[in-house]
């Protein structure tokens, strides 16, 4: 099968023929229809997040089950599915508490080498998916069956970008109606945090970004106010919009500590700041504990929107079909695998929400 392989950080991906293994027990092989490009793919390719080479990226994937391993019961060949990087054992403490995204065994390795290049070299599956390839081989827990009439390019977005933002608001923070929300960064994740907040009945929903064009787009997803942090004192603006108190919830979808500091300062007494965007590993966060005592503010993180795939993916699809979740508007461009480097470049410009690689 064809795949886009990263052999060197910061260099274009190499499109080549590679070998994929047969599914082991409780594994599923999926013929990929669509894989979206996420910003963390770009971080991986630039070497900003640690990990071995060579690898195949892509973890926002949808396709059709091609073949199932022994013991697979939730899907069968031919089923349309979303494929996510979240895997779960179903039996550990966190799985039992319905927090499978925190599964203690989520990093358990596959018994087999799954992908090799023609020279026999092992190709690492980033996020355990490797969706920039014609087929993916994943654990059963990573796939969720979707209705046959759900367009798979839009379904792919549900695997990461949408749930990370929407779920950060709905699952992690559990934003209540009439809460005030600020979302720092209005890229693919931020814009979904905004539609999650709008869906939850939050008001105001304040989008914070450096580009007016993105703030305009954010309004279409439910932001009631836009603050350009490059032009105004964003902390003061958020306070003004929240009765002088600061926001009840702040979601920081930009991956740097300055944005986290700024976001935290936007939160009010008892406010919760949720770190979603991943800064580079070497960036350390500095906090003043005294601030926490006086204001009883909360600082936490949201991992993959605290998503329970089996519950959330079908519900989000229902919302999409009912016109209450925007997915069509998230796709900026569609590219064949051969043009993936172009799609990546265009994502880096910041004008794009999601570019999707389409397979035949």
């Amino acid at each position, binding site marked *: 099968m064809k795949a886009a392989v990263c052999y060197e950080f910061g260099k274009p991906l190499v499109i080549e023929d590679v070998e994929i293994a047969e599914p082991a027990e409780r594994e599923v092989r999926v013929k990929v229809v669509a894989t979206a490009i996420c910003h963390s793919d770009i971080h991986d390719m630039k070497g900003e997040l640690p990990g071995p080479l060579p690898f195949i990226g892509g973890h926002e994937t949808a396709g059709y089950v091609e073949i199932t391993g022994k013991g697979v019961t939730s899907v069968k060949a031919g089923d349309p599915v979303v494929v996510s990087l979240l895997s779960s054992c179903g039996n550990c403490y966190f799985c039992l508490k319905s927090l499978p995204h925190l599964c203690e065994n989520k990093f358990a390795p596959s018994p087999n080498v799954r992908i090799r290049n023609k020279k026999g070299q092992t190709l690492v599956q980033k996020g355990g998916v490797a969706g920039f390839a014609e087929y993916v081989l994943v654990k059963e827990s990573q796939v969720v069956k979707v209705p046959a009439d759900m367009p798979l390019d839009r379904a792919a977005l549900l695997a990461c970008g949408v749930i990370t933002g929407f779920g950060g608001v709905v699952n992690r923070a559990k934003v209540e109606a009439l809460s005030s929300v600020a979302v720092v960064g209005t890229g693919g994740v931020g814009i979904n945090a905004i539609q999650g907040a709008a869906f939850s009945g939050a008001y105001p929903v304040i989008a914070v970004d450096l580009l007016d064009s993105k703030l305009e787009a954010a309004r279409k997803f439910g932001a009631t106010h836009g603050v350009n942090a490059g032009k105004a004192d964003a902390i003061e603006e958020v306070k003004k919009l929240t009765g002088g108190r600061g926001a009840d919830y702040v979601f920081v979808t930009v991956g740097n500590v300055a944005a986290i500091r700024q976001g935290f300062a936007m939160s009010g007494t008892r406010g919760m700041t949720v770190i979603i965007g991943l800064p580079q590993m070497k960036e350390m966060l500095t*906090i003043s504990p005294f601030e926490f005592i006086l204001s009883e503010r909360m600082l936490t993180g949201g991992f993959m929107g605290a998503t329970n795939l089996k519950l959330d993916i079908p519900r989000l699809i229902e919302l999409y079909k009912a016109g209450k979740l925007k997915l069509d508007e998230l796709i900026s461009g569609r590219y064949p695998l051969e043009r993936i480097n172009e799609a990546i470049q265009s994502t880096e410009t910041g004008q794009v929400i999601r570019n999707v690689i389409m397979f035949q």
Partner: protein
Amino acid sequence: MKAAICYEFNQPLVIEDGVEVDDPGRGEVKIKLAATAVCHSDLHFFKGEIPFKLPGIGGHESAGYIEEIGEGVTGLNKGDAVIIGTVTSGCGHCYYCTIGLRHLCVSRRQPMEGRHRNKAGQRLAPMAGPVAGFAEYTTVSETLVTRIPSDIPMDRACLLACGVTSGFGAVVNRAQVGPFSSVVVMGCGGVGLNAIQGALFCGADPIIAVDILDSKLETARKFGATHVINSKKEKDAVKLVWDLTSGRGADYVFVTVGNLEALRLGFSMGGPRSMTVVIGLMMGNLASLMPMEFIMTEKVLTGCGGGSLRTSIDIPGLVSLYKTGRLKLDELITGRYPLERINEAMASLERGEALRNVILF
């Protein structure tokens, strides 16, 4: 009247006679103090570790009797036994009062003008809270006063104004620990022990006490700790906590010592989705937190001021627990001192010998 006045940081307090206090104004009450305990935050202020204008009067863990009520005060009468603490019962009108978080009332941060004057007529600001309890009389806002039954001994009642509630309230009100949750308490002083008895009351298990003194850890066991860790002797206290919590880390960590290293250590002891609550007053910045740690584990870092106390609900509740043998207060008092010997009482607290030393009037 007599009061213990701080004229200079790091110097003994001066016991001065002839100090006067203002008559209660609108919404205020004048109190005849019966007992005021010495808290660690008094020490922080007297040492100048928390910037403050001098001269001043410390003491904020107080019990006494209403001497005089100001205009507009309702629900309190001359002679009532009360406790006087740092946590406000709220203005009743602001956003936070309206949503039921009266301890966060916007009025709590209004600048504090001293109500006492020394012989020279100089204003003496209350230190470490708005009470100025190291004096025979004080005048405070009625919102800082909670009526208590007259049959609870005042030396024990005063502990409910801060030490007990800061620890117990952080567990019960702020974190709302549930049965079978695992709890770590960093520091087993006056606040830490009460976090421990709060955790026990909530049905937490295990309850792991962490300190650097074995003697304090022994006391912690008496207050309900199921396990103790001497973090000075143990090489890897974090691993011990993880071992005691099925390899997951604790569900709740309460940091009752005002020390950045203790906070960093405590935060590492929390597992995925855990909550670490900063209680001990600490200045400065902690610069060693990784954003990745927050994202991958979804841990919560937060703080708690004054036990997030709902004074009119929690104080009577705690009095009732004490009377029915479910809250230890007697065991918290190490020594009783007259005001004249307050410097001795503070020195003993500073040496780590005392849970609470109480000044009796």
